[in-house]
């Protein structure tokens, strides 16, 4: 592996408490029941290298945006950690966190919502500089706007977001993200709100960002055609977990996880001469509150192989003869991991715990 790891995400989890309303939560505190959680991100690990572009892909609700927001500390992780420059963020001091925030920026999906309508373009771009007490404000703002191809920059200084088009607004958001000279940027669906004819312009700007500044970028998108165009590596997420991760071309051309295969097969091709093999997937994405045991994809999986899928959570690991990491039991582990061993262990444990478990079920039903 390369040794220039910028960011190391280690078993990151982010759970949100389900809002049940105050009567229900009062009842719950009286009865002592367990609150329910949405397992938005449930054990995600990856490395982001310097100068690399990584794509996080998946359907809505798979946890890609929550992962992205956790990366820039907009969410406090429930468990797991992010290591930045060999420093664990959970143990970082305030000063170190401030330095991290200066280096971690985010570009949001909707430029109509993400820019403060009461601030001028100049103030929007200058605000991060003021927060971090950085001098040379005007020159930096000007340079950022020029990089974002908003020329001449001075002309935009006194304008308000509502005077600008969607494409121009997204360029302002990019200028604001770049003005602090960060190490990495999380871009969440950066062009999905823009009209097709304008997308390529913003994309080429983002491309230049990585080329000219050596920035690392995490792209979050549901659009695999776009990610293929933009990213070095891809991570495919399903129900809060990464199911497959590896070089973009490898994943798109030779997907291995049954979910990735279905996902990539479903992408329409803008060429009437290309026929596409269609795999029909049963059912819909499962419940992220009451997480199923074992593999989360098992109920829809066309390759389901029985008990091991039912009971053992497949780890994301290297497989024999595969260039990408895959979280699926149908491939043989290259790391010597045997899911069947764990299945046997679990069966034994279950037999021992049998009496306890039956007690639990009774007490739960009594509460209802």
């Amino acid at each position, binding site marked *: 592996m390369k040794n220039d790891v910028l960011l190391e995400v280690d078993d990151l989890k982010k759970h949100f408490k389900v809002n049940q309303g105050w009567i229900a939560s009062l009842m719950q505190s009286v009865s002592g029941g367990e609150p329910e959680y949405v397992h938005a991100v449930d054990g995600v690990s990856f490395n982001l290298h310097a100068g690399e572009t990584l794509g996080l892909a998946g*359907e*809505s609700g798979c946890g890609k945006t929550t992962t992205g927001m956790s990366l820039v500390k907009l969410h406090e992780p429930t468990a797991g950690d992010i290591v930045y420059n060999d420093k664990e963020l959970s143990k970082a001091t305030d000063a170190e966190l401030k330095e991290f925030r200066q280096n971690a920026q985010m570009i949001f999906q909707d430029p109509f919502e993400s820019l403060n309508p009461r601030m001028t373009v100049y103030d929007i771009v200058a605000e991060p500089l003021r927060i971090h007490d950085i001098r040379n404000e005007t020159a930096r703002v000007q340079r950022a706007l020029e990089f974002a*191809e*908003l*020329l*001449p920059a001075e*002309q935009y200084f006194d304008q308000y977001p509502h005077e600008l*088009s969607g494409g*121009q607004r997204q360029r302002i958001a990019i200028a604001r993200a770049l003005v602090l000279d960060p190490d990495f940027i999380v871009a969440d669906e950066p062009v999905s709100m823009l*009209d*097709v*004819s*304008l*997308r*390529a*312009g*913003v*994309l*080429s700007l983002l491309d230049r960002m990585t080329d000219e500044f050596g920035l690392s970028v995490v792209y979050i998108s*549901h*659009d*695999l*055609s*776009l990610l*293929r*165009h933009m990213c070095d590596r891809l991570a495919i997420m399903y129900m809060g977990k990464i199911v497959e991760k590896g070089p973009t*071309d490898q994943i*798109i051309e030779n997907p291995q996880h049954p979910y990735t295969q*279905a*996902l*990539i*097969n*479903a*992408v*329409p*091709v*803008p*060429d*009437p*001469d*290309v026929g*596409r093999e*269609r795999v*029909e*997937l049963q059912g*819909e994405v499962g419940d992220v509150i009451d997480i199923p045991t074992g593999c989360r994809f098992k109920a829809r999986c066309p390759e389901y192989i029985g008990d091991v899928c039912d009971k053992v959570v497949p780890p994301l690991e290297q497989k024999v003869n595969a260039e990408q990491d895959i979280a699926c039991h149908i491939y043989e582990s290259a790391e010597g991991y045997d899911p069947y061993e764990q299945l046997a262990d679990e069966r034994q444990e279950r037999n021992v715990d049998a009496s306890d478990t039956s007690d639990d079920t009774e007490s739960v039903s009594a509460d209802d």
Partner: protein
Amino acid sequence: MSLLEVNDLEVYYETEDGPAQAVDGVSFELEEGENLGIVGESGCGKTTLAKAIIGILPDAGYINDGSIGFKGDDLTELSGPERRRLKWEEISMIAQSAMNSLDPVYTIREQIVEAVETHRPGTGRIESDQMVTEMFELVGLDPDRADDYPHQFSGGMRQRAMIAMALVLEPSLMLADEPTTALDVIMQDQILKRINSIQEEINSSMLVITHDVSVVAETCDRVLVMYAGKVAEEGPVEEIFNQPYHPYTIGLKRAFPNIRMTDQDLLSISGYPPELVDPPQGCRFAERCPMATERCREEEPEAHYVNGLRSYCHYTDDIDTELRPYADDARTWNQTAAAQNMGGD
């Protein structure tokens, strides 16, 4: 005779500054059993066109001129009740947002049965229930869920329920306005597949309105490209994708990344579509076209017919002889884009 014949249709919206010419002189035909894709950017008039055809224009909108021929009738001249009879029975619509198109206080079954009973008076309850069951099976929904309310369905299920409703009376024309844009890609794929197979079964025609050219490439026989209220180009899907003639089509096609291709040079079309209240007099795309000349800015282009395509560009004949390599090069467009950004808007 074609199933649908739209002739020089003009649909305007009343605004404070005068009428906005949302659809301005659009003509096309749709044969029985044929699928036509209407593509273009937001504001090009594609949804207005669909609304005018089915007769649900908002209050500010009106048909200024032109005709919509449907099975021998001119829809623009029909009375309210006559049009209502056609709606759902002959022409149905699958809207972009099924959440807003289904009534939240009625079960799905009640809504489908209502459509059946309104248009086919005398249909017994048993028979209409049977139709609901059949339609649910056809779109891949569990018939036992027919008595659920819309909010109990997921987004994908609602969209399927909407399709079931649009198909239950076996209309000869379906208007699908961004039918899958709100859905995830796997669900989109399944729903498009279902629509296509049902269509074949009942031999209906479809207008697919979308900004997503890949959806059109996979579901349609012909494509109509709209720009700023006008037709830019129209023709068979293979020709439009393989060898388009209108510069806007060439640009639009190259602005989309293709999952099957590596290292594509995506192209961006500089500038923005013109105002529709006081549109420019020449070609409406001239301002953004890297190949535009003085003539384009002054004189509105006529239809040129080439290779089965209808292209509204003065230089249609020159595309093959000299302009194509230039138009096909992303740099041509991106340079224009950069130059325009420099100048500011």
